[in-house]
């Protein structure tokens, strides 16, 4: 079940990735390719290694083996913000918003970071030269040059647009921490989009939403994929959602990939049922989707 080798249009590609925490093998020989327009699912029992996979892809953890490529670039050893600049954005399983900032500013941070001039390679970060170059842009902020003001207004516009897309315009000036759970999740997505990603990783976006909101979310995710021409990778425990929107689903268990394929195939896969869905699933949700 290995993936088509480095085809150029692969925006995100993991090959043979493994990571170990002390004794525990959290992820073993993980392969994945995300192309523009893909809408993929990543499921598996709790502790299977899904979030860990996200962390490895985004540079939060460094893989013990294997390599990760973003937009064709090998990114092993890079730090998250560098990888993000290549077009990889994510949300977090347990929400990590900038709690004291308004919804608008949360998004603006992300929008701006893209402008961030010189993505510095790790290790180089300390180099005086690079550090100094980064000050140029500060001067424009301090002198409040017309160009800079234009930029700022442009940022605000973008951010407001994203809030609107995610249906959060009414929360524009609310502090993130005061938003109810579901809206916080959507704000996280808006923020991720702010970084103008080519690939979007969503870690349990529907957690804490009621069935109704989940339904809306499904529509939304599809829409985002098309509107922003993204590749999307979703972790989710809500089968209705995953099966509903994903074209291909990868199933992890104990860090191993135990299945990959179309929803229908995966749903009826014996291994998957044992490890994850459980028999009862067939009865209750059998009809669904």
């Amino acid at each position, binding site marked *: 079940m290995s993936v088509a080798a480095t085809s150029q249009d692969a925006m995100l590609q993991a090959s043979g990735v493994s990571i170990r925490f002390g004794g525990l093998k959290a992820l073993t020989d993980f392969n994945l390719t995300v192309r523009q327009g893909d809408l993929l699912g990543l499921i598996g029992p709790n502790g299977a290694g899904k*979030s860990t996979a996200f*962390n490895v892809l985004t540079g*939060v953890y460094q893989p013990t083996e294997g390599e990760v490529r973003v937009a064709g670039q090998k990114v092993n050893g890079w730090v998250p913000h560098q990888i993000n600049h290549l077009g990889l954005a994510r949300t*977090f399983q347990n929400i*990590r918003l900038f709690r004291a900032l308004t919804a608008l500013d949360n998004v603006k941070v992300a929008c701006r970071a893209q402008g961030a001039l010189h993505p510095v390679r790790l290790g180089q970060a300390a180099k005086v030269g690079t550090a100094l170059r980064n000050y140029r842009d500060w001067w424009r902020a301090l002198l409040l040059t017309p160009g800079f003001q234009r930029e700022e207004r442009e940022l605000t516009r973008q951010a407001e647009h994203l809030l609107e897309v995610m249906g959060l315009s009414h929360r524009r000036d609310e502090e993130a921490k005061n938003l109810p759970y579901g809206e916080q999740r959507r704000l996280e997505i808006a923020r991720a989009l702010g970084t103008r990603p080519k690939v979007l990783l969503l870690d349990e976006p529907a957690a804490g939403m009621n069935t109704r909101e989940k339904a809306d979310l499904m529509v939304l995710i599809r829409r985002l994929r098309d509107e922003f021409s993204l590749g999307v990778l979703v972790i989710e425990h809500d089968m209705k959602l995953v099966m509903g929107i994903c074209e291909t689903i990868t199933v992890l268990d104990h860090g191993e990939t135990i299945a990959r394929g179309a929803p229908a195939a995966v749903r009826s896969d014996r291994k998957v049922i044992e490890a994850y869905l459980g028999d009862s699933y067939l009865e209750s949700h059998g009809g669904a989707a």
Partner: protein
Amino acid sequence: MSQLLQHLINGLASGTIYALVALGYTMVYGVLKLINFAHGDVMMVGVYMGYATAFALGREAQRSLWGVVVIFAVAMGGCALLGFLIERFAYRPLREKPRLTALITAIGISFALSYGFQLDIGFLPGASPRAFPEVIVPTEWFIVGDRDVVVWNWQVISFLIAVTLMGALQFLVYRTRFGMAMRAVSWDHRTAALMGIPTDRIIALTFMLSSGLAAGAGLLYAIKDTSVSPLMGLYVGLKAFVAAVIGGIGNVPGAVVGALLLGLVEEFVVGYAASTWRDAVAFGFLILVLLVKPGGLFGRVAAEKV
């Protein structure tokens, strides 16, 4: 050679004092994540309490065993109370507030105590240092040649006390319900309350414990260096805090090891390099340690799960 040995002894002796004070810092930090800047000054107050008691007892009594016990009891008890009051009125009201605010009140109390005790008004002792009575009659326990190397009884005593305390605290924190509660509270006292832990009481007790400890440490310190002064807390406090960080603040054995190391480093800088650079080297050492081990020698920076 004999000189090296003497330096070793001196270093350990002053390290021991740092250790005893550092333990207090580490305990409070452990449960509240608060750098209790007033700790050193609480210690100072304790020493003055002991000083007063010693005088009340008079020359003979203060040297008798029970006399010493009384002195320590009064000082430690008094400081425990002081610690309780400080926590109750200066820190607890800020429990829900950003950590830095409590830090500021700590600084405020530190100023109030250290400057207050410099006043020569009423019972306050005034700025000039006093000689601390020899409540533990100093006797050499180990001499080489014509006092080429000298070890004193109080040096050994305080060292043993320090090590025992370390053991005791380590046990308290990691082997007892109280300790488990402490660690729970230190993470999040609201959730801890959901477990039925009386958080306020736990925190208050921790403070009393650490303050009482400070008094004890202070007395041993005063006995060692034979003098009391209102600013003694400031200097020792800072060093002890550094020691605690070197060891990994919040970590009990770390505090002691860090303190002993700091004591030795300082001693040897003075002994074999330039004494004028002692403090610089001490802090340089600290920074070095942190650059190599960002969490201190024993501290672990918990890799947060994302």
